[in-house]
């Protein structure tokens, strides 16, 4: 027995050293406590012992030996009560030998008839008392004073070990949280759609994400590679200048040419670092604006084309009127020039109407009220109108099969028919037949308009539905079309969920066909 009736400093020291070594071997708090308790009971030849830790101002048994399990589970001692509570509250050690009479010290194990000795000492950390350690020896052999001191030293060692263990645990927990946070940010960085580049003060790229690699077409990169290698046209000093100062931002569009095609990237750069006056680098954001630029260019080109189309008839109208105001012409010529002006003014009017239709179609304003439409009747009335106006032509309507009821915008479909028949008339300079077929099919209704005119060259067929596209120009000069008829027709047909196409077999005569879908259900009724 160590530190028995005769205290032996060397033995005690050796024992402390052993304890220290053993405690160094583990950083798990519970393992530490087990070790402490085990060694302590051995050292003091105690029958029972426990380590209690403070939680919510109460002591609960954390580890015990020689105590019944239900005691271990259920003992909860408020600070100040009993031996443990007293020691924890005062921070003083306690040695109780023999029968415990003092009512302050309610015994943990209610066996008042037993004679025993108890040693109890506080466990401390930097913040104060964190718990107590207690050992009990049954029988009449008492604990000595020097044993109490030694017990205290052991407790100190134990406290230290426990504290280390706890620090280690909380440190691990913090590291884990940090790693999770880092993972989250890394995932964001990696999965972002926009490219991100971080550039240091020397102009080297320190970070870049997958999107940046993809946008820049980089297959391999090395940390620290110069930005000028990747984006040679970006003037770094200009970027830095613009990005300096509070709220400073650099923004520019950069064109890149690669095998994949041409892309336009919007580069936005800001300074990196907390101090706007002394930045640590730059953060560049890359956003793909290729599509947006393309759409804007298309809009701009369209406006240009529209402007030209509008100014052309206007030139004629204002030109002839000016001539007639400033010069003398005989009556027949006056009539001729006035007639030309009127024709061109009407053409201008048709063009404006077509443009308005196009605009309305594009803004989705049509099909406000789809209504039942009888396509065969629509076709019949359209052809009736053309028959009257163009006696040199023979217009024929054929209806085949059972037509399912159609829900659509009748005015717009009328316009499609008018555009198609009108084209047939325009491009059949020698007159002839214009045949319209309306046929009910399983999927919907098929309409085709066929003529015997000049046809469409095969290489031009893909373009006929483009805006302002005109196949034959000498005829264009005579007929004064707007160039939007087929474009609008396609818009309308596709807006109804249908398809439209052109054919010109043997490049003599043309046939334009469109199909409008209808849904048939079992009852035999259907809707488009």
């Amino acid at each position, binding site marked *: 027995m160590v530190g028995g009736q005769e205290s032996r400093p060397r033995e005690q020291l050796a024992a402390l050293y052993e304890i220290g070594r053993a405690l160094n071997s583990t950083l798990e708090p519970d393992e530490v406590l087990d070790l402490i308790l085990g060694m302590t009971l051995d050292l003091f030849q105690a029958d029972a012992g426990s380590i209690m830790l403070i939680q919510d101002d109460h002591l609960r048994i954390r580890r015990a030996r020689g105590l019944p399990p239900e005691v271990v589970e259920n003992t909860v001692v408020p600070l100040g009560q009993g031996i443990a509570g007293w020691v924890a509250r005062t921070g003083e050690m306690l040695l109780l030998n023999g029968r415990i009479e003092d009512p302050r010290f309610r015994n943990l194990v209610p066996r008042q008839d037993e004679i025993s000795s108890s040693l109890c000492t506080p466990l401390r950390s930097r913040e104060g008392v964190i718990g107590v350690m207690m050992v009990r020896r049954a029988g009449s052999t008492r604990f000595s004073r020097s044993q109490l001191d030694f017990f205290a030293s052991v407790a100190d060692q134990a406290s230290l070990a426990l504290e280390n263990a706890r620090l280690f645990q909380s440190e691990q927990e913090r590291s884990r949280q940090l790693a999770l946070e880092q993972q989250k940010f890394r995932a964001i960085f990696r999965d972002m759609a926009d490219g991100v580049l971080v550039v240091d003060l020397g102009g080297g790229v320190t970070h870049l994400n997958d999107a940046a690699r993809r946008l820049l077409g980089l297959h391999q990169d090395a940390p620290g590679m110069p930005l000028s290698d990747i984006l040679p046209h970006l003037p770094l000093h200009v970027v830095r200048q613009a990005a300096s100062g509070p709220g400073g931002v650099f923004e520019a569009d950069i064109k890149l040419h690669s095998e994949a095609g041409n892309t336009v990237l919007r580069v936005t750069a800001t300074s990196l670092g907390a101090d706007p006056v002394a930045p640590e680098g730059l953060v560049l954001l890359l956003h793909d604006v290729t599509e947006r630029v393309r759409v804007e260019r298309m809009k701009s080109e369209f406006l240009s084309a529209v402007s*030209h189309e509008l100014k052309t008839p206007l030139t*004629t109208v204002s*030109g002839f009127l000016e001539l007639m105001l*400033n010069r003398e012409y005989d009556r027949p010529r006056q009539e001729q020039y006035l007639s030309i002006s009127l024709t061109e003014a009407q053409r201008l009017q048709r063009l404006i109407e077509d443009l308005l239709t196009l605009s309305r179609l594009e803004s989705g304003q049509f099909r406000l009220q789809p209504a039942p439409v009888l396509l065969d009747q629509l076709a019949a009335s359209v052809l009736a109108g053309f028959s009257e106006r163009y006696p040199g032509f023979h217009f024929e309507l054929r209806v085949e099969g059972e037509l399912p009821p159609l829900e659509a915008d009748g005015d717009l479909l009328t316009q499609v028919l008018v555009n198609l028949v009108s084209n047939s008339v325009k491009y059949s300079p020698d007159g002839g037949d214009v045949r319209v077929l309306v046929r009910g099919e399983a999927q919907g209704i098929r309409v085709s308009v066929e003529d015997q005119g000049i046809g469409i060259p095969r290489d031009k067929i893909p373009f006929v539905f483009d805006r302002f596209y*005109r196949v034959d*120009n000498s005829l264009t000069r*005579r007929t004064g079309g707007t160039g939007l008829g087929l474009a609008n027709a396609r818009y309308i047909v596709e807006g109804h969920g249908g398809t439209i196409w052109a054919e010109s077999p043997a490049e003599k005569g043309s046939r334009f066909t469109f199909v409008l879908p209808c849904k048939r259900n079992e009852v035999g009724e259907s809707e488009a």
Partner: protein
Amino acid sequence: MPHRILVADDEAHIVELVRVSLEEFGVEVLDAPDGEAALAAARRHQPEILLLDVMMPRVDGFEVCRRLKADPLTRGIIVIMFTAKAMEADRQHAREVGAQGYVTKPFSPLQLASVVREHLRGLSSADE
């Protein structure tokens, strides 16, 4: 010998307008409906002035002018371009391809006549 002027435009009414505008001073007006026809007519008939529309199908006006000026046979023809596009970039482009003048549509026929007259006068004095 009357002066010969070639008008290249795909719009029949514009051609007619130009013809009537230039009636006054007894010029002979030829016309061509597109770029290819314009080049062929220029080579064949050697007009003194070519009034050239920019927006023509297949071969546009700028290209016609470039080819015209590249060909020694037709280099001397005075080219005046007209178009509905009135942007500075287009004027610049016209200068680059060697056109001697630029008129925007809608044009005043009287102004056009006056521009043509100036160029013809220049030619006559060059002859003297």
